């Protein structure tokens, strides 16, 4: 898949981040970020495309750095995040979120990259039982630039 902003590698890392914060299965709902990454990743990519160049570059760089630094720092593993399995990613994020600063703040970056895109999907809204009070306007034509 081609993206407006993200490289394939960056998309893979963000997808890995997504699968760590929202793993598949479990008792609450079956969907995980990995189940729908073809749908939410382009939405994250679009959001990034509307950010200023410097913000985009900083986030993209951060994604590469965190891919290696997180497992090394918090799990003492020389393995990138993308090579961990879903459960290991979740464990890693749990450790980071419960660490002193800047651990929780860095997890917030992951949430910013994943949640707005993921929880806007109709399948996800349905899975968590959320429905807007009203549907969109009858003459809705879609977002514009």
């Amino acid at each position: 898949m081609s993206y407006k902003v993200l490289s394939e590698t960056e998309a893979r890392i963000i997808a890995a981040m997504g699968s760590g914060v929202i793993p598949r299965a479990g008792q609450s709902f079956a969907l995980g970020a990995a189940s729908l990454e073809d749908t939410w990743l382009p939405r994250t990519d679009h959001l990034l495309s509307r950010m200023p160049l410097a913000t985009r570059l900083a986030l993209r760089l951060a994604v590469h750095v965190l891919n290696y630094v997180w497992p090394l720092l918090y799990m003492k593993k020389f393995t990138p995040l993308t090579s961990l399995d879903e459960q290991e990613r979740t464990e890693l994020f749990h450790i980071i979120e419960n660490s002193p600063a800047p651990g929780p703040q860095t997890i917030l970056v992951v949430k910013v990259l994943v949640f707005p895109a993921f929880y806007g999907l109709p399948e996800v809204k349905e899975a968590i039982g959320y429905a807007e009070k009203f549907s969109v306007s009858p003459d809705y034509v879609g977002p514009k630039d």
Partner: protein
Amino acid sequence: MIKEYKDISNHVTEAADVCIIGSGAGGAVAAKELAEKGLSVIVLEEGSSFTTKNFNQDPGDMMAMMYRDAGTTMAYGIPPASITLGKCLGGTTTVNSATCFRTPSEVVQDWIDHHDCRGLDYEALLPYFERVESQINVTELSEDILGNVYKIVKRGAKALGLAAKPLMHNVKGCEGAGVCQWGCVKGAKQSMEVSYLPKADAAGARIYTNCRATNIVTEDGRVKGVEAVFIDPATLKRRWRMRIQAKVVCAAMGALITPAFLLRNRLANTSGTLGKGLTIHPCGRVVAEMDEVVDGHLGVSQGGLIDAFKDEGIMLEGIFIPPAIMAMALPGVGEEHKYLAKHYRNLAAFGVLVCDTTRGRVLPGMFGYPYLAFYSLNQEDASKLHKGIGYTADIFFAAGAKRVFTGCYAMPTLNNKEDLKAFKRLEVKPKHFEVMAFHPLGTCRMGNDPRTSVVDLNLEAHDVKGLFIPDGSPFPTSLGVNPQITIMTFATRTADYIATNIHRY
């Protein structure tokens, strides 16, 4: 006449009595008031124009569409503070929660007594408040529309002997869609593009969207006009140039962009205070998990308030948001997170707004940013935020909450009242908070003395004749309440002054 980028096919030259940069709470009001008084007015808005035809209630899509920098604007400091801004016709009023407060009289008195604003008169502001409130239909909503979170908070507050009150909103026919910040899907919110700007348009104002001001042209200490460029909204690239000859220029880009713009233009800074004195109303968000189904999204985003702690500089105000954003306010990853997402309908949330004593600073932007803002929360404000979160948690537990999430990294989850006691005893520092803010103010402060202020009490720059700043920048201190009515009121007053004195320019 509202012209968008697609309507422009060449460089543009215009002339008007007044050129207004920005179409938010300040600019739109000034435009309508001046146009209706017979002045020729041009409004420049950098963002695009949107209607309910474009609103799909999805925070991700709407942030990408209507928020400056897709919602990533912030002030750097400890902790960094997210300050979201609208970038669209109507400015931030298009993406705010429609909450209305008059300026507290004690705040205006403080400006008069301690901030060199002798000559301001609260009584004289009253007719302006009334004029603004009638234009945007400030009204009290029924409890059903205010939503279940309001009812829960009211219940908890009552148990503690506190009073929760309904917030006032600028709406017409509101049905509580609960997506105020993502564009009102019912078109009920009387934001500027729905209320003031159509009237400005009808009175003959020429409104240009996708048009970014680049310079204010001056000569011998007087404004002569504005230079601007049209931006292709799809690529964000500059295209056509625009030159406007004007007797008066109103810089109404908001308290973050106006000072940065003026600093870059080397204007209005004889006092050396331009860009200094930034206040933001740092906010915290407290979320409670309830046994009952709350369905907080089936009502307005901000339903009620508790002002019992106003004297401590703390205001508690409702806030409820869709899951895409609510999820970011909750702790946990993996199954812990999924549990809370699945129980979204059982969540209630309330906000803590701090009347801040911290002062930040705005500098001209670089690397494509229109401004750089710096703001590090001081210990006094961090303590207020801590206290406010504690009060809100008290209210939620009194209303029967199972758990409360504080937004404080030092203790993000409170499982019971014992935890709450421990939370209140914590020694917290500014770095422990996730801070968001929505009301930047104070960066072009008003006052009588040109040595210590940027604009006079009519909001005209001391050292540039014909340059007015009718936005949130001139207010010398934090208001302690949502500022849109204050901004609109002062903009109306300034428009009256300009119209009366236009012959002098």
